[in-house]
């Protein structure tokens, strides 16, 4: 079985095989035999190169059914990554979709109530400019623009409760030369 691993900005080509009772992982062409034993429904004991490591697997539900998200916890922390079937999807496409989502969409970090909307669609915003106030966990949280941009769509409404990850405001990256000038973020128009 072949998979493409995507973690942070790295990708690796992986394969897993069972060879005569042994399990082998091929990592970018290099073979790593290992022994694995399921100790609890979502928890494995892995022995690789003599090292015994416990791994707990959380499958993270993703909008894309072919993009299998994982959060694997080991003793020194947790790793978030996706495993993708290279036969099924065009990896590049999925990544392009993922990239477009970050940065330009301001989403709710926690469930709460939109107290105040501070921007209008079409309005230019500077990096760090407050765009709305979300009341959550009994605190007023200020959401600021992550970059200089123009306000695209406003998804949130004042006084309305939102779930975690709910889209609040979409920011459209500025065209090159557009005011307020932000050369760092400019010149990166989103592809339709």
């Amino acid at each position, binding site marked *: *079985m072949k*998979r493409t*691993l995507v*973690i*942070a900005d*790295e990708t690796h080509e*992986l394969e*897993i095989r*069972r060879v005569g009772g042994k*399990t082998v*992982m091929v*990592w970018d062409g290099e073979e*790593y035999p*290992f022994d*694995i034993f399921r100790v*609890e*429904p*979502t*928890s*494995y004991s*892995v022995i*690789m190169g003599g*090292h015994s*490591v*416990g*791994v*707990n*697997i*959380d*499958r993270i539900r993703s909008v894309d059914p072919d993009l*299998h998200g*994982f*959060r*694997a*916890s*080991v*003793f*020194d*922390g*947790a*790793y978030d*990554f996706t*495993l993708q079937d290279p036969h099924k999807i065009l990896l590049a496409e999925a990544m392009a979709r993922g990239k477009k989502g970050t940065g330009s969409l301001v989403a709710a*970090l*926690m*469930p709460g109530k939109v107290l105040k909307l501070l921007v209008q669609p079409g309005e230019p915003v500077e990096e760090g400019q407050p765009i709305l106030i979300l*009341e959550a*966990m*009994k*605190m*007023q949280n200020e959401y600021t623009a992550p970059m200089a941009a123009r306000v695209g769509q406003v998804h949130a409404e004042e006084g309305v409760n939102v779930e*975690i990850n709910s889209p609040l405001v979409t920011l459209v990256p500025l065209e090159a030369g557009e005011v307020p000038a932000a050369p760092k973020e400019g010149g990166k128009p989103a592809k339709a």
Partner: protein
Amino acid sequence: MPVTKLLIANRGDIACRIIRTCRELDIPTVAVYSDSDRGAMHVRLAVLSYPIGPTPSRESYLRVDKLIDVCRKSGADAIHPGYGFISEDTEAVRRITEAGITWVGPGAELLAKMNAKITAREIAAKAGCPVLPGIHETLSDEDVMTEARKVGFPLMLKPVAGRDGKGMRLVKSPGELRRALPRVKGDALFSFWDERVYLEKALTHPRHIDLQVAGDRHGNYVYLWEREGSVQRRFQQVADEAPSPVVTPALRKAMGEAAVAVAREAGYVGLGTVEFLMDADGKFYFLEMTCRIQGGHAVTEWITGQDLVRWQIQIARGEKLPLTQKQVPLWGHAVQCRINAEDPDRDFAPSSGRILYLRTPAGHRLRDDNGVYPGWELSPFYAPLLSKLSAWGPTRAEAVERMHAALSEYRVGGVRTNIAFHKSLLEYKPYLRGELHTGMLDHAWWKQKKVGANLKFAVAAALFDELELEERRAQQPAEKDEGAAGRIAWNSLGKFNRL
């Protein structure tokens, strides 16, 4: 005051912790639960359990009428509030005591005095305890601006009715103060129904030192040493320890005696905490008094060998304090980490959802005060605390090492946690050197770890999980997923109808 059957007006880890002591004392316990807490751990541990309404705490855990009603129904003659919820609500305490129910905590008059931060400050000053300069009168915003310039910046802006660090804001300039005033007032009104605020001179790099005190009905007072809660994030304590790494025996005595003087001046009966801010020179100032058990109490229990909930119950019963000042032991060092379901990589956003996997650490001189279990669904309506993990060692270094090892063993699946954050804290040089101050986590010291050495193990397990899933699917194509099974059922039904 009888405490023969105790209602615990709380939930989560603290409710479980109180129930455990009651089991030792053979006091039957009464749990109360909101709609979403039917399966909560405290309900499972208690002898009796009663529903008290919908999930939002204002309609359940904060409803005094319902709590009194459950006392009547269950025969409970006392209420322990834990911390948070009604624990410092003067009006709630008044109604409960008027209903003839024993309140495990200081009475309503005491609470009223200590809750009004300005009155509390006056009591402390009268007891000879140093206080911080500031503005304590209720003034118009314009007058506040003028007075603030006189006291000098930086200043701490706080709600008068505030507690637990909620709604506090540090202001460094008149401009910041002007901007912060409406925001802090808004938070205060929302959280405490009181928009009055006050200002206090802010110290640079202060330490937050809590003195645990107790007073009984017979005029006896003791202090159970200090806890240091300087490790804070947005004024919320993240890690606690006792004793403080910088408090010397002489300073400990001075602070302890000052704390007892405040308690005595107030006529305090119950377990409480006198909070101090301490500057780099070891000068300390009264901050406020917390009139309930605190989240950090376990570290005090470690170093004194006492059970503070047991103390609370004994005091409420009118018994004498179990120890005199001379008898209070001080053994070794203890540290505590608050394990929250939150994502340190996403600005500590609370993480709600089902706990799919839970393995808590075990071992010598280790304690995990938890209130959850695998399969439990964390509600976004309540604080996302999973447990409070504490460790003891003969020295601070050994306690920290034990805690670090324990955190490696702690695994939670299904929700994000701050375990990795705590581990980083325990590796953070200033922390290890004991150089703590309340702003130590304000700068962006926390970084998401780069891809580490154990990635291959993590990925191997995930790959294997995928392989097994694929093999299972290959064997049973009809049960690919529930949706597919549903579709097949629909299809055949449709066909059947058309026939």
